[in-house]
Every structure is written in structure tokens, then in C-alpha cells.
């Protein structure tokens, strides 16, 4: 039987550290890592009003659960949670049900916003519409990727509602795997602008005019591998939905598989990519500021939300 350093039965082998962990030491290590990440990047400050994006999945539920422990005793920080119903049918209904249950148990105020509320239709209707419109057109002439429509609409709603609800920060459940996938995606697409906004806290300081329209995002789980957030949620018996989104696919998932193959061969490689990116981030921001600094910054002519063009992506894809 494999044992933890304390002598108790191990439940997990953390390969990149070469150590076995029992249930208690595993939980402690995750919570301590989250606290360290928050402190290291100064993610929280007195007077903050945090909006937790909770889907009902393992990552967002875990981050809300751990931060609720940290924030509950603090009188100087307010927080609430919200979920987005993309209109993907049973999958989302079930996960939002889990999110509601979690918030009720933790005593956290919870709000639900839907694509239908903002765009008059959900993902199901939108993708049927896209299918009809793209008929006869060649690949590359039309955006058919569901994740593009979904992420654009979700980002739009999240930013708008949290700003209107006077949140000072949005807390997301992005784990190490999500972060590293995004780093590689930005690299592959050559999107330095987006790369410059990545990191533990989304930084729009480069775009000063837009700064006030964007609510900064914090990611306290960015140094926790996906497998470990899943194990944490399991051992803490959190209400988590493990169902799969019916539209899941796209480049992110090829990169996810590639990174998992790489991690299997070279344990710790995801951390190496993250650390290297974090070291390069100031240089990336400097390049972007030099090259893109003069780019005209504006608000969308249709909806008034921030954009780098005349019309924002949400209006372009959803109207």
C-alpha cells in the first residue's frame, strides 16, 4: 500500500512532485496552493465585490467552495455567484441545478442569465440558423464553430452583468490545463494581443479607455491541474455535474489531448509552459503596447460594449 508521508493510505500520486498524498494532505495542499496563488498575485483586496462565475462543473464549484472558506470570515469583501444558461438543453439545466444547490448550501446569492435574455435565442437555435446560412459555402468562409459563438456571447454577458452589478472582479474556475491550453492557442494563432491579456489577472491596463468597461478576471485555480480539481471536488463531495456539452469540440480540444500526451511523457510540462509564459508576459505586453498602442479604441456602435473595432464580436455574430 502506498502511503503519504504522515503514514496514512495515499489516495493520489502527484507525479510532478514525486509524492504520495492521503486525503487530508491532498485537500490541504490544494487549499494552500489556492491561498498562495491569491496572495502571490494580490487577487483580492479590501472593498472588493467578487462575482463568481459558476457553471456547476468541478472547477467553478471548487473555486467557489474554497474561496467561500477564505472570504466568509471577511467583512470587507462582498461576493455573489452567477450562471449563464447558453440554451444547450438538458446538459446546462442539470449543471445550473447543481450550481443553485451549491450556492444554497454555502449561503451565496446566485443569479442566472441566459443567451435568450440577451440575444433572443440560445445555442440550439443559433447553431440551426448557422447551419442553414453556411449551406453551400466553403469551410473558412463562414464561422461554424459552436465554441466561437458560445464564448463570444458568454464573455459579453459576463462582462456586462457583472459590471452592472458593481462587481470589482470576476472569479473564474480556470485550472492549469485551461490556462496552458489558452497559452498555446494564442501562440498558434499568433494572437499576441490576447496573450497580453492573459495571466492570473486579466489586465486591460494597456487599453486605458476600455479599462473601466471591463471587469478584471481572477483565476485562483490556475496552478491546479484539472485532474486535481476533479479529485478535490470528489473527496469534498461537492455537487458537481460531469456531463459533456453537446457542442464540445474545436482547436482547444486537440491542444488539450496534445498537452495530456506530453504531460504523460514529461510530468510537469504544463507547469513549465505556464512559468515560461508568466516570465515572458511583461515582454509580450511591452511589444503589444508598442505595436498596438496606437490602435483606435472604441465602444461598439450597436450595443456600447467595449471593442477594438466598430462593432463588437457579440453583435457581429449574434445579430
Amino acid at each position, binding site marked *: 500500500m502506498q502511503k503519504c508521508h504522515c503514514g496514512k493510505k495515499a*489516495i493520489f500520486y502527484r507525479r510532478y512532485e514525486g509524492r504520495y498524498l492521503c486525503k487530508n494532505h491532498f485537500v490541504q495542499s490544494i487549499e494552500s496552493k489556492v491561498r498562495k496563488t491569491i496572495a502571490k498575485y494580490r487577487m483580492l483586496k479590501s472593498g472588493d465585490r467578487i462575482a463568481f462565475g459558476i457553471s456547476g462543473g468541478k472547477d467553478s464549484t471548487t473555486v467557489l467552495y474554497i474561496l467561500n472558506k477564505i472570504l466568509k470570515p471577511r467583512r470587507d469583501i462582498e461576493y455573489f455567484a452567477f450562471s449563464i444558461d447558453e440554451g444547450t438543453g438538458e*446538459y446546462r439545466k442539470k449543471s445550473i441545478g447543481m450550481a443553485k444547490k451549491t450556492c444554497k448550501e454555502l449561503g451565496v446569492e446566485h443569479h442566472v442569465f441566459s443567451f435568450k435574455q440577451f440575444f433572443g435565442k440560445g445555442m440550439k437555435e443559433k447553431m440551426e440558423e448557422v447551419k442553414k446560412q453556411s449551406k453551400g459555402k466553403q469551410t473558412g468562409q463562414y464561422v461554424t464553430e459552436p465554441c466561437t459563438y458560445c464564448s463570444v456571447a458568454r464573455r459579453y454577458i459576463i462582462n456586462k452583468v457583472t459590471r452592472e452589478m458593481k462587481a470589482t472582479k470576476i472569479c473564474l474556475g480556470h485550472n492549469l490545463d485551461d490556462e496552458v491550453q489558452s497559452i498555446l492557442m494564442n501562440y498558434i494563432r499568433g494572437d499576441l494581443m490576447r496573450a497580453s491579456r492573459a495571466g492570473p489577472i486579466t489586465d486591460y491596463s494597456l487599453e486605458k479607455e476600455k479599462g473601466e468597461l471591463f471587469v478584471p478576471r481572477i483565476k485562483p485555480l490556475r496552478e491546479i491541474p484539472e*485532474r486535481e480539481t476533479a*479529485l478535490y471536488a*470528489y473527496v469534498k463531495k461537492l455537487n458537481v455535474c460531469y456531463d*459533456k*456539452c453537446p457542442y464540445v469540440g474545436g482547436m482547444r480540444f486537440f491542444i*488539450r489531448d496534445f498537452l*495530456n500526451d506530453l*504531460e504523460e511523457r514529461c510530468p510537469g510540462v504544463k507547469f513549465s509552459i505556464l512559468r515560461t509564459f508568466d516570465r515572458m508576459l511583461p515582454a509580450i505586453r511591452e511589444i503589444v503596447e508598442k505595436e498596438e498602442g496606437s490602435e483606435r479604441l472604441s465602444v461598439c456602435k450597436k450595443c456600447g460594449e467595449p471593442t477594438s473595432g466598430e462593432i463588437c464580436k457579440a453583435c457581429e455574430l449574434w445579430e
Partner: protein
Amino acid sequence: MINVTLFYRNEKIKSKVSEGTTIEELLKKLKINRETVLIFKNKEPIPDTYKLKDGDKIEAMLITTRG
């Protein structure tokens, strides 16, 4: 050789492996990436370095299903 059963994505996979084979090695043989699963024996999580015994019933829970 020993007989082991792996439950993975609603499938029951029976395998014959040599004594001392670890779960990690079994996953490799079945082309399942260990980074994508959590391992359970009798509903309790266990390390993937666990050495399989004859008759073991192991569950590999897929965790990369988000969207």
C-alpha cells in the same frame, strides 16, 4: 498472469496482465491517457501506481468532459 476488470466510459474492459502490473501500465496498454482519468477501487480514490491483484475491479473516471 492475473485477471483484472476496468470500468471506463460505461464499458467493462477485462484484461489479462502479468503480476505486478500497475494501473498506469494497464492504462497505457489500453491507450487511455492517465492525465484524463481518476482511479477508484471500491469507490475510493487510489494512486495510479497501485500494483494490480488478481480479480481487481478498478474504475477510471474520465474527467475531461467540460464544455
